[in-house]
């Protein structure tokens, strides 16, 4: 589903943010990507979402290769790989329902189905009671759920999440994780960046990849966890 082969990412003036990283995330797998601040977690997710390209090596996501996918085709990949950020990035002037409906609309859902399908997605993330709330009227955990519902609009095969629990208290963070586990149970692959070790310990069944200064230094599956 996601395959990195000897991926190096260099930024001009900065040097290598990732150094020869290789790993494979299978269909239906749940993986935590961890490491210290600056170790390259966000960079990895950006490469998987093809917001950026590797300097060397190849990133393959659901049949799309970083070497072959042109900038004008990236949107096709994005429909298969939904992305969620720590800071949600919701449209401030729109309600929860409108935010999700917007994503549905711009990815080709017929107008007649928008309302119904947005409602269903928000129900899936447990937010049926707050359909007409603006982002400012929602808690951090609730906003995160709207962002997740939005990422699910295109029925992706992979969910990418960059510190989705970063701004949430422990209970809210667990809630988001439970939601990811449910989505994963229905067959979706999940790749989630986090530096929250307590959270990782709370879900011992989840595979862990650890980055350190751009190198992959630990894979729980290969170390027999």
């Amino acid at each position, binding site marked *: 589903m996601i395959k990195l082969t000897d991926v190096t990412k260099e930024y001009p003036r900065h040097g290598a943010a990732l150094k020869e990283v290789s790993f494979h995330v299978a269909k239906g797998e749940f993986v935590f990507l961890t490491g210290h601040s600056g170790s390259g977690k966000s960079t990895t997710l950006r490469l998987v979402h093809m917001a950026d390209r590797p300097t060397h090596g190849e990133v393959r996501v659901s049949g799309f290769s970083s070497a072959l996918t042109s900038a*004008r085709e990236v*949107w*096709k*990949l*994005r*429909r298969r790989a*939904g*992305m969620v950020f720590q800071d949600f*990035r919701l*449209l*401030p002037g729109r309600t929860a329902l409108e935010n999700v409906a*917007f*994503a549905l*609309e*711009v*990815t*080709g859902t017929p*107008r007649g189905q928008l309302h119904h399908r947005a409602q269903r997605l928000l129900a899936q993330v447990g937010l049926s009671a707050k359909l007409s709330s603006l982002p400012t009227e929602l808690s951090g955990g609730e906003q995160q759920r709207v962002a997740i519902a*939005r*990422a699910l*609009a*295109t029925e992706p095969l992979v969910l990418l999440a960059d510190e989705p629990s970063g701004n949430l208290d422990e209970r809210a963070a667990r809630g988001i994780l439970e939601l990811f586990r449910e989505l994963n149970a229905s067959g979706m692959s999940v790749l989630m960046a986090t530096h929250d070790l307590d959270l990782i310990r709370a879900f011992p069944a989840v595979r862990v990849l650890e980055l350190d200064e751009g190198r992959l230094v630990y894979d729980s599956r290969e170390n027999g966890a």
Partner: protein
Amino acid sequence: MTHAVREALAAIRRAPLLTALSAAMVALALFVVGLFALVAHNLQVALDQVEERVEVVAYLRDDTRSVELEIAEEEMRSLPEVEDVRYVSKEEALLLAQEQLADFQDLFAGLEVNPLPASLEIALAPGSRDPETVSRISQHVSVYPFVEDVRYGEEWVDRVYLLQRISGITAGVLGTGFGAVAALIIATAIRIAIFARREEIYVMRLVGASNGFIRRPFLLEGIFTGLVGGLLAAGLSYASYLAVGHLLFPVEWLPGPWVAGGILAGAAFGLVSSALAVRRYLQEV
């Protein structure tokens, strides 16, 4: 598609003044072109009428021998530019003059010798009635020793052609100038529309809206602006045509395809301007 239309209309409603300004500039550019097209077209109409009568007249010396004349006539006829050669004798010339100048009947009646020369009227083939060919044929004819003088409507045929060329060049220069300004204003309008929408555009990219989908509203906005400009220019040109016809002299309105072409050119211009702006500014958000 409905999304694109709604978004384009929203963008226009958000900045109606800028849209109006863009359309006005497109209109101005095309109006200049329209005015000169009107001039050029009417000059062409006039030229076409004149051209049918364009002929070279060679006046002959009185002592021209008919053998020489026949050979010359034959030679001229064999030129591809020459449609027909007609010999007008001194007598015919006088008769013609008396007919055309009936008011001066008395003048002719008192004449003892015929002062008018015989002549060859050389009609030119269609396509060979431009100033260059006419003057070349005249030169050719003037070489015959028995030809006294050669005349054709040189001065004003030249002048009409010159006018036509000047109006074409002026239209090109002014139209291009106004067009450049119009393109800049359209680009500004598109840029503002893109920045007003940057959060939406970011989310669109994030969730996987296609590039075409993201671009379409801005392109539509450009097409709309250009189309309005084109229609406005056609209206202004028509008003000028009516005014000239009313106040100065009767003129002909432009052929339908020219008008349609001008309006479409406005729309195409709007599309291209906004496409360039979208290419440039969409990367910035």
